[in-house]
């Protein structure tokens, strides 16, 4: 993805060797792709699409739409579900993880329950969610919630658990009460770890959403993918895979930007 942005500027003054190699790799792969599909036809269209097919499929999805909606509608549907599930999960998960890390009794209380639930992979919740809530948005939000919940709890808990003892003592001997201790010592010291948790949560949200939409959905990028699979439309399969990856990457970049603006004190 980074390659695409450098590609926009042909007049780069200086290009590192590794970046050049990277560009060459991408160019080679694209050339090979052309060679194997359009030029020689070694790989048939039912195995892998040719670049023109890929572009045509993309144009079709973007303009007239596919599987019940245009690219924008499908992407917005998926984005909306991820946003709701992810937000709900961290709104509950981060405070819970914080309490578990802060208070030994809360830790003792919740940890065993976690040990029971944690080994169940988020994807394994999909059938249960469908039995409970059907194929609509609610079941998707539920599985995203389950998927994103665990990493946000675990990492917040670990981060708070490992807050540096001396900083807590420094705050105490300089008269900080519980409120300031939490706001000005625990939270900032645990922040990098909390963000690690959020990144993992976001990743899990996308993985789970795609799976849930593949299992059954009326709209969304996973629905595009499963329809394309049923139609054996390899070009559309590839288009939806790329779109899902790009959507995931965009949300990760937004999160990274939020992290950078929150954690300004770190060495770079």
């Amino acid at each position, binding site marked *: 993805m980074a390659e695409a942005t450098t590609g926009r500027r042909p007049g780069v003054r200086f290009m590192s060797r590794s970046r050049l190699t990277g560009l060459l*790799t991408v160019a080679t792969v694209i050339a090979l792709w052309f060679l194997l599909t359009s030029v020689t036809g070694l790989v048939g269209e039912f195995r892998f699409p040719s670049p023109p097919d890929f572009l045509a499929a993309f144009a079709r999805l973007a303009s007239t739409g596919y599987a019940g909606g245009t690219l924008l509608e499908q992407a917005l549907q998926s984005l909306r579900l991820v946003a709701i599930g992810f937000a709900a999960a961290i709104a509950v998960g981060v405070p819970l993880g914080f309490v578990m890390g802060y208070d030994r009794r809360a830790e*003792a209380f919740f*940890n065993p329950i976690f040990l029971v639930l944690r080994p169940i992979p988020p994807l*394994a919740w999909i059938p*249960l969610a469908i039995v409970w809530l059907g194929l609509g948005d609610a079941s998707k939000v539920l599985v995203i919630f389950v998927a994103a919940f665990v990493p946000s709890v675990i990492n917040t808990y670990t981060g708070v658990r490992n807050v540096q003892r001396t900083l807590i003592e420094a705050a105490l001997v300089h008269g900080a009460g519980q409120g300031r201790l939490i706001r000005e010592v625990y939270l900032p010291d645990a922040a990098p770890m909390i963000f690690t948790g959020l990144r993992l949560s976001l990743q899990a949200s996308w993985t789970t959403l795609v799976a849930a939409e593949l299992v059954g959905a009326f709209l969304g990028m996973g629905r595009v993918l499963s329809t*394309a*699979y049923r139609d054996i439309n390899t070009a559309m399969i590839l288009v939806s*895979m790329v779109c*899902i*990856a790009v959507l995931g990457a965009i949300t990760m970049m937004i999160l990274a930007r939020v992290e950078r603006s929150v954690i300004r004190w770190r060495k770079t």
Partner: protein
Amino acid sequence: MSERLPLWAWSAAGLILFFGLWQGAVSSGAVSSFVLPSPLEVLERMWKLMNQPFAGALLHEHLLSSFGRFMGGFLLAAVIGVPLGLMMGRFRLLEDIVTPLFEGYRYVAPLAWVPFAALWFGTGIGGPIMVIFTGAFAPCVINAYRGARLVDSYLIEAAQTHGASEFRVAREVLLPGALPSIVAGLRIAAGLGWQSLIGAELIVVSSGIGFVMVQGQSNLSPSTVMTAMAVIGLTGLLIDIGLRQIESRVRAKWEGR
């Protein structure tokens, strides 16, 4: 007063409350057992599935076929991913070539590979193995790469000045030096691979523990679904415990040098 309560009592209270509320909600009739079967009903169902074929096989037979697929995909990911990661850590050129492709691949959710996997390798064994592979591959590569980068360059130079070939450097310096990181990566890979398999079985496969869930779902039998969830969770836990054993052994050996 609560300060006096020992911590294990809090743990016990948590578990009792969790299972108690669950069982109580169903027993009291507040929640229909058709929606949420009680823990006891799930155990009962598990017993039945182990003695009476469901969706074509007994529960442990389904589990075995899932586990076989898992091992296939996981080993493939390890056998390809670890050497690739080590070489990327050793040779700058390879790192530069692979990195852009790898970055792109990493953002594709493993389950999004299911259609291609099914088209290329079928829905029997090949397809699911490819899905597990795509899930487990990234951590194998990343951790081997990081581990290799952490190996002291003096050690590599020392090996070279003593006339070691590139192959011996890889086998006798890079691999052991990176081993703790590699084993940690394998643990992550196993978790992701196991979960990808379940996803694949939900979508395209017609046997295995994930298929049991799908059947339970379409029969509207939450007790079957939850039985499968328990079995999946337990198996994942056992895989993780096994790898954790290996990890702690490697660490003990390396750090207690």
